[in-house]
């Protein structure tokens, strides 16, 4: 909303529409990638040739990448004005990491 | 000069600590009587010393500031100081150094006290089976303790008999809710969980055990129900020879032969008729699975220090306990399981129970 007062509405509108459309294209691409990653994950699990110890970290990695796509593209965390959201989501992820790590290491019996 | 002042302060505070009393030798952590407790005690003293320094520094600045900078009528506006990097660095770095001094022995000690490899080896070896080093399985239940010596096939309750001057290893768990096993003068506590077995070791020093008259108090240190406060046990510290002789007597104990007098024999019968035997074993070699062992093993009951862990051991109290256990340990699981006992039955049971001894 930088040019709130000084803009020519018509031109501006056309420009904005174009920008939005372009962004939408990015969204579709990231969606395609997400679907792709999902399929890869499912195939990995269904496929017997791979060592189980490799499978788990691999599919978890895929999930993380996918979630980054969701957060940064679908949820626009890549946009300006998202410093707050980034801070809180990453803090949440930090606590998540600690919790999950603890439960997988020191709760074992 | 300054150093001297600090040392004096330290000395003074340790003195006050001593003067204000260290408690009783059979229960106080401040009168350690074993290697583990010693190690912990020295950590406690080290940290106390560091903390006394910290508190002293803060207090000195504090008192100086309060004396010097009180408002004295005037409407003067003090200089609005923003801060000082030099000072801030000082009071960041010095605490870090103090903490390092504390952290190093803490980490070392944490690993040392958790070292239970000898026990694992002993248990893995069939011949040894937990004799050398001695292994004790501890099982905590609402509100009593069972101690099993797996190397000897002996089970006892409430009173834990331990040889002095050697490391004893423990396997601990709980059968109903979480409890915690603690003998303050001998070493810090460890929880008995419902999900797993915990392990640690203790070592009693014979000389200092004597000062506690060879009896230590054990406590349950985790809230477990109404009678949590009363879930005490006793530790008898004996020499290795005495221990050997005791464990042999336990192994050879024949419950069938102990009742000698008529009354005791009658009591033995009541013990069966009233179903006491369904819960309480009277033989140290109890082969039932632990789920079936729902009450203290009474094999050497007459040798115990206390009745039910808390009451002084005498005929009167045995009767009281049998008459109304709820009165002495609210919420215990024996209450209401055997109907009313007549005065005669009580006497008989008491006589029988008093005959259950390996020492006599």
């Amino acid at each position, binding site marked *: 909303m930088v040019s709130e007062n000084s803009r020519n509405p018509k031109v501006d509108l056309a420009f904005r529409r174009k920008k939005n459309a372009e962004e939408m294209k990015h969204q579709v691409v990231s969606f395609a990638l997400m679907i792709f990653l999902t399929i890869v994950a499912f195939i990995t699990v269904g496929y017997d040739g791979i060592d189980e110890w490799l499978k788990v970290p691999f599919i978890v990695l895929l999930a993380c990448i996918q979630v980054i796509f969701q957060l940064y593209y679908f949820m626009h965390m890549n946009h300006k004005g998202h410093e707050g959201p980034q801070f809180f989501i990453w803090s949440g992820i930090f*606590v998540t990491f600690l*919790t999950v790590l603890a439960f997988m290491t020191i709760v074992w019996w | 000069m300054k150093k001297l002042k600090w040392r004096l302060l330290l000395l003074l505070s340790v003195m006050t600590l001593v003067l204000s009393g260290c408690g009783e030798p059979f229960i106080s*952590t401040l009168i350690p009587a074993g290697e583990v407790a010693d190690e912990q005690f020295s950590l406690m003293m080290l940290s106390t010393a560091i903390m006394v320094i910290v508190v002293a520094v803060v207090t000195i600045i504090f008192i100086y500031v309060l004396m010097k900078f009180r408002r004295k009528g005037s409407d003067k506006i003090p200089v609005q100081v923003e801060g000082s990097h030099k000072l801030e660095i000082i009071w960041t770095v010095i605490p870090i150094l103090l903490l390092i001094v504390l952290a190093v022995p*803490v980490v070392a*000690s944490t690993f040392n006290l958790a070292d239970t490899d000898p026990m694992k080896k002993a248990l893995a070896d069939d011949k040894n089976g937990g004799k050398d080093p001695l292994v004790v399985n501890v099982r905590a239940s609402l509100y009593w303790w069972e101690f099993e010596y797996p190397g000897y096939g002996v089970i006892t309750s409430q009173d834990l008999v331990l040889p002095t001057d050697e490391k004893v290893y423990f396997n601990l768990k709980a059968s109903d809710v979480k409890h915690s096993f603690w003998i303050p*003068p001998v070493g810090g506590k460890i929880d008995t*969980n419902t999900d*797993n077995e915990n392990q640690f070791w203790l070592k009693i020093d014979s000389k200092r055990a004597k000062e506690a008259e060879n009896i230590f108090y054990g406590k349950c*240190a985790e809230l477990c129900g109404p009678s949590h406060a009363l879930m005490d046990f006793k530790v008898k510290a004996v020499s290795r020879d005495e221990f050997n002789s005791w464990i042999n007597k336990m192994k050879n104990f024949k419950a069938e032969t102990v009742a000698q007098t008529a009354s005791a024999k009658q009591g033995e019968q009541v013990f069966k008729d009233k179903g006491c035997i369904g819960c309480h074993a009277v033989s140290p070699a109890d082969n039932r699975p632990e789920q079936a062992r729902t009450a203290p093993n009474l094999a050497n009951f007459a040798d115990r220090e206390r009745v039910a862990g808390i009451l002084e051991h005498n005929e009167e109290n045995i009767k009281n306990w049998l008459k109304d256990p709820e009165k002495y340990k609210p919420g215990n699981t024996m209450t209401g399981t055997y109907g009313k006992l007549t005065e005669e039955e009580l006497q008989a049971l008491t006589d029988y129970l008093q005959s259950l001894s390996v020492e006599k």
Partner: protein
Amino acid sequence: MSTLARKKGFWPTVWDYLTTVDHKKIAILYLIAGGLFFVIGGIEALLMRIQLAIPENDFVSAGTFNELMTMHGTTMIFLAATPLLFAYMNAVVPLQIGARDVAFPFLNSLGFWLFFFGGVFLNLSWFLGGAPDAGWTAYASVALNSPGHGVDFYILGLQISGLGTLISGINFLVTIINMRAPGMTYMRMPLFTWTTFVASGLILFAFPPLTVGIALLMFDRLFGGNFFNPALGGNTIIYEHIFWIFGHPEVYILVLPAFGIFSEIIPTFARKRLFGYTSMVFATVLIGFLGFMVWAHHMFTTGLGPIANAIFAVATMTIGVPTGIKVFNWLFTMWGGSIRFTTPMLYAVGFIPSFVMGGVTGVMLAAAPADYQYHDTYFVVAHFHYVIVGGVVFAILAAAHYWWPKMFGKMLNETLGKITFVLFFIGFHLTFFIQHFLGLMGMPRRVFTFLSGQGFDTGNLISTIGAVLMGIAVVVLLINVVVTSVKGEKVGADPWEDGRSLEWAVASPPPEYNFKQTPLVRGLDPLWIEKMEGKKGLTPAEPLSDIHMPNSSILPFIISIGLFIAAFGLMYHNDYSWGVPVAIIGFIITFGTMFLRSIIDDHGYHIHKEDLLKDDNGGVQA
């Protein structure tokens, strides 16, 4: 309040408070409710202390003692300390940042009513078959083994009030992010606002684990779940972790705002700006951050193994460093200042050595092998009362005296205030200092009695005497409140004369819109800056114009009642056939009301410029 009552009559006033979304009135609600629960929790403490005054006492039974102990801890932490701090946050933070209101006035009210009904629900347990008795930690195996509905009251009551706390936390976060006046940058925010901000962040990340933990407990107790049933693969250690992942940050949720309060009071009465403001902010954030990485220090004896114990021991100790930074900054704020010993300042001054004592015993507890000796003894009880009472309660009492004039327009009586302080201070040290030694001498905590002959007798008696002194001190405070509201004198905007932050720039109590014109902030301690430049008020950042205000609403109250009803249904659904329908009705009330809220447009209303001009006592004098 009393003036309001006269103006409006009793029932309209009640209605006004039931429906209010004004942060200043919600603050008063928090103060009253939190104060009430503090007295309840304190009475529970006194009853415990009476029972423990002599060995083998039978003043209360074993079961009752466990109930008192559990309810004391739970009430004090969740229903007294947190809400009392919320009271000051609500009253002061919007003013300090130059805002007209919080970000979500409606949610603010909802947060209060959820907390309140959760607390009422929990306390009803006393009359409905017995209170919870598994400790404030409600460790799974004891909690599942506890007969009756006591623990269910705990689970459901905390669930409701915890939701309220979470909502309030989010509200403060957004308020501080979005509603600051022009020029009020993050690094110009008063420390109380900063600590509120960080504490709210901790609430945001710590309360969800609590929600989950007690939900799992609820499944196990009420719906046949097996999370904590080892026979079917459950694991009780999970609960311990979840509880402390919440529980440790919770203690910093309490103490950080307390630090904030003292960081306001000390500069005011030393007439000197806060020493090392930047490092204070940094330390606050660091404490909050580290607070999430140390929880297992409550579980050293659980048997996590030496690696975990060593890591958590060292991590815990590091918290001493930022806290130390704070302590020394306070000392050096006073250094070179001009200290005036008002009642709030007395608490601030008393706080420093008391809290440091509690803090250093915390570091001692962090030495894992030594903690095998301290854990679950009175040494721990002594530690946390030193930090909680010496830190948090002192702060709450200090803030009560400090901000009372701002909240109610009248100054609490200083003489009575000082009497309260002296009694409380002496009582406090008498009660808890000796407990260190009781613990070291082998006295476990959570015991309803102790046998004589173990050396615990004298210490416990002294402790009880101290508690009685604290009780008397609280009674004097209550008298002070009554006396003040009957005949206290009205005060102006800056009753302490040395006010530094924005709350002292508006009338006491402030008008409903706080600032007639949003102020322009030109630095740290904005009011002080203007005063030093000889100005009377602040520079406005905007021309006088209509002010937008939110509408009052009864819906938060109804939403909360719905959950209150549903909780009864859930609790009794195994016992009575009406359980399930009642639960459903409760949820319908709650969700139906939420639905109403979402479909009814609520645009608020405006106070017009002309009316503002007429009303000349408020806002920034430009």
